[in-house]
């Protein structure tokens, strides 16, 4: 057995592994449970609201987020407990306006300025941010096990009225990783296998007519 055969067969194994992973990646995610069919609300100008409060997600069990509104909004998925995020925003406001009452504190903590300031000092918690739009429909799988809080933010001066639906979904494997590996394995396998495939075809004696 020559080195060319050994490398070629190894390449074929990589190629087949890549193809199997490719097959795994195209198997669609399965819906497990819908949290909030047809629920909706309104976000006042320059404020934000919690839409999904604490859900533990893994690279294989994610969520499908679907939000529609009358005006543009930003949607964030943060890797933090909702209560923790609330504590941060309240603390931020309290530090700057110590004389505010509890209800005023709560109202002020939902301001976009506070939100942006807290996010700026905790940038690593942002798992995903949508483009500013009035409609999103997105599958989301976190890269690691995460406690996810969903936030709908309204940076505009109009009231945003929205309807949303969040469905927990599960996939056979983390899509992003599987797709990346498929894209790596197939070309590497093909490059390693081609010389061997070519040599086996050349070596075959052709039948005389």
């Amino acid at each position: 057995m020559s080195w060319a055969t050994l490398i070629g067969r190894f390449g074929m194994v990589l190629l087949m592994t890549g193809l199997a992973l490719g097959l795994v990646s195209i198997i669609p995610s399965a819906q497990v449970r819908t949290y909030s069919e047809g629920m909706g609300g309104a976000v006042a100008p320059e404020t934000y609201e919690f839409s999904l409060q604490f859900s533990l997600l893994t690279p294989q069990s994610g969520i499908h987020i679907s939000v529609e509104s009358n005006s543009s909004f930003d949607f964030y998925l943060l890797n933090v407990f909702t209560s923790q995020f609330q504590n941060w925003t309240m603390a931020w406001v309290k530090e700057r306006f110590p004389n505010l009452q509890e209800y005023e504190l709560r109202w002020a903590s939902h301001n976009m300025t506070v939100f942006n300031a807290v996010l700026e000092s905790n940038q690593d918690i942002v798992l995903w941010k949508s483009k500013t739009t009035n409609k999103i429909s997105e599958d989301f799988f976190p890269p690691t096990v995460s406690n996810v809080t969903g936030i709908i933010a309204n940076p505009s001066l109009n009231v945003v009225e929205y309807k949303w639906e969040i469905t927990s979904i599960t996939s056979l494997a983390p899509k992003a990783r599987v797709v990346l590996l498929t894209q790596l394995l197939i070309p590497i396998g093909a490059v390693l296998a081609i010389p061997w495939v070519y040599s086996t075809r050349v070596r075959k004696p052709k039948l005389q007519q």
Partner: protein
Amino acid sequence: MEKGRPFFEVFASALKENYRFPVLEIFAFLYTLGTFVLAGLASLGATYGQTSETFAHSLVTSLSSLPLFIFVILILVNIAYGLGNDIEKGVIQTLLSYPLKRRSVLTAKLLSALGIALLLFLGMQMFAFFVLAPDVMRTYFGTVLLSYLAVLSSAFLIAGIVLLLALVLKRGGLALVVGIVLYFALGIIGSVVAFLSWTGSDLPLRVYAVISPSMILDRYYSGAGAVPSFFGAREIWVPSFSEALLYIGAAYGLVSILFLLSYVYFDRRLGI
């Protein structure tokens, strides 16, 4: 001739025979697909936030279930059909004419039949772990390793029995059939033993644990003692960690004896 060269020549010829194109490629495809499909199905039933040793063990069990069956089929075909047919058809005489000790010929054949299949199996499993739960692999590497040892021991036991049978009977086909029957029989015996443990003594469970120690590790990690059943709730034996280790050690002791017997038989009593 260099000292190691005949060994590699026998090994290479065994490789060529055991993994003709596209056998290896098809098995790699099946291993990958089986691993990920079953891991995905297992995740449906996984408890949220379960990142303990139990999760690591249950992930090994679910990742390896279908690929283990494929692994057993591959090694049975390689050992029974490959080695058995070599003896039946007299090909082994050519291999024995190499300037090698008999046990080296058998080692080269087993390295190809068992070693490469094991490398492929473990490679795919580790790859799946890396893709699905790299943090679990890092944190609970010992648990993962122990679970694989337990899961693989029954496959090695069947391989050992089939090897000995193929050598004694000198017929590959028959050894292959016995191996397949044995694989399914072990599963059936496991169910019977579980049933018996609900109704009566723990002894069958302990005996079966020597043959299939993965069951003992399941019991250790699940910690399920009392089982409500038709016959009323009953305390069933839950092993301690040292007991689980002892049973895994005993299972590998049994496997070692079978392989040792095969080596002795091949070396002295093959009659070729």
